């Protein structure tokens, strides 16, 4: 329904898609706590692409009962998804950490704020994250 390109390494513009999604959700009158959940998760997913991948896309789909956010990238992939899900685990470079990102809360935050989180990843190829938010 809405698609945004994400540029790896472009921290400057990270979060712009969240802004557009937010306006849309406000306009159709979704409850604020719900909007907040979607925004936090979408922003984290977008940041993961910016911090780890070359490029990617974020898809936003609005259905009657749910929102689906799909973030795909052509990045390094996640070798150990279980470990990556742990709070504080991060493979972000020191540069990224110096910018205040990469605290290892990305995936935990995405899991906490979505109803279902599916991660399809292949090392060396990329990652696809599908998050579902039920109304």
């Amino acid at each position, binding site marked *: 329904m809405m698609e945004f390109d994400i540029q790896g390494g472009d921290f400057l513009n990270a979060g712009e898609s969240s802004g557009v999604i937010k306006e849309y959700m406000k306009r*159709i009158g979704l409850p604020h706590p719900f909007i907040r959940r979607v925004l936090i998760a979408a922003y984290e997913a977008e940041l993961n692409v910016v911090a780890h991948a070359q490029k990617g896309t974020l898809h936003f789909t609005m259905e009657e009962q749910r929102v689906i956010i799909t973030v795909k990238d052509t990045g390094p992939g996640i070798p150990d998804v279980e470990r990556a899900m742990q709070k504080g685990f991060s493979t972000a470079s020191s540069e990224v950490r110096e910018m205040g990102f990469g605290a290892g809360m990305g995936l935990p935050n995405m899991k906490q704020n979505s109803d279902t989180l599916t991660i399809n990843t292949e090392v060396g190829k990329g990652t696809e994250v599908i998050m579902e938010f039920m109304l």
Partner: protein
Amino acid sequence: MTEHSLVIDEDTCNGCTVCLRACPTQALIIRNGKAKLINDRCIDCGECVRACPEKTIQSKRDQFEIIHNFKYKLLVYSPVIFAQFKDYHDYEKVLYLFRHMGFDDVAGVDTGGYIAADIIRGFLKDKKNKKRPYIATNCSAVCRLIQSKYAGLIEHVLPIRSIADIAGEYLKLSFINTHNVNPGEVGLFYISPCPAKLIPARQGEGCHNVFDGIFSMGDIYNKLMLLMDDNSIQYTRQEMTTTKFALRWSSFGDVEHKFKDFTTLRIDGIKNVIRFLNRMENGIVEDVDFVDMYSCDNGCVGGVFAKEDPHIAEYRIKRIADKFPEKIDKTPFSCNEDTCNIRMKFKYDPRIPQKHDLKRAIQTQAEIEALYKKLPKLDCAICGSATCYNFAEDIVLRKDVTIDDCPLIKNKKLEDLLKNVSS
């Protein structure tokens, strides 16, 4: 029904669209050549009053004469009034002239400032509160903006009244206590530097309106100018109890100095306020404890009813403030949460009714987006809506315009017609 202070004089409005472009919330439209206010969107910031070349948009305010309806008359003024006069000592004259006009006692908004500062400090110190930053309630236009458009930020708003309201509560209670008079005989008035404060901010539950009448600072300025020319007035010296910080805070929003051990921000100008609120709503403001936002440039000194340039006004207030101490030990009447009505509950007041029929809302939104794609996106406002997006919304939701009201689209249609008939 939302009450607004702004009124448009249809006789003098020439439909020029300047106000449409000035309005930060797209609350104005032009229909049949006249500007109209969309009540649900207006936050009374007064940017249209400033912009209107015909002075067609005015503010409803109380007439000064209503003070005579009360036996005792009290006045809360914004210290911004002092900055309208060049002479360093004129603030003392102004204080005397308030008495001369008939007021039994007066207090500046700064009084509310030094009372509120300690209470705010209490909130900032409370580590349990994770909802940072706190948002101050001093600017009524900002309050209305948050109430109407930023439901997610309501819990960030400090649950205490504006410093003008607190000054009013303090003045009235201290007068009643000192003189032992019947509260019903006491009228409390306020001089507002802007249209936003002319009407009580819709602050939500448990909050009565503090003032019995609110005047425009411009009207009072005119009165003061005339009185200052009157050589027969014998001035007597007036005392003012205030602090350096309170004067600065209540005039141009200088909070940094007072809350040094916290991260505080003063944000001025309605466009900057909106940008900041959007960032907050997106969840990317993390390292700020307290934010004091003002719709006008440089805070209240930039108010719509101020004559002086806001930066000159700031300089003048600083000069006056330097005469006063950093701290005062004791207020003549102890105003705290037990004695004064300081707290308030701030609630969300959605201007756009929440659409419960989500399926329809999604369809409507899709219609608007589809229409918007066809529009030229020049935001020229000639159609009478502020932006092309608003125009698309108006076609679908207000239904008071059609796509042919866009001059470019209409022209294109005529050109196509011409091509067809001439070929």
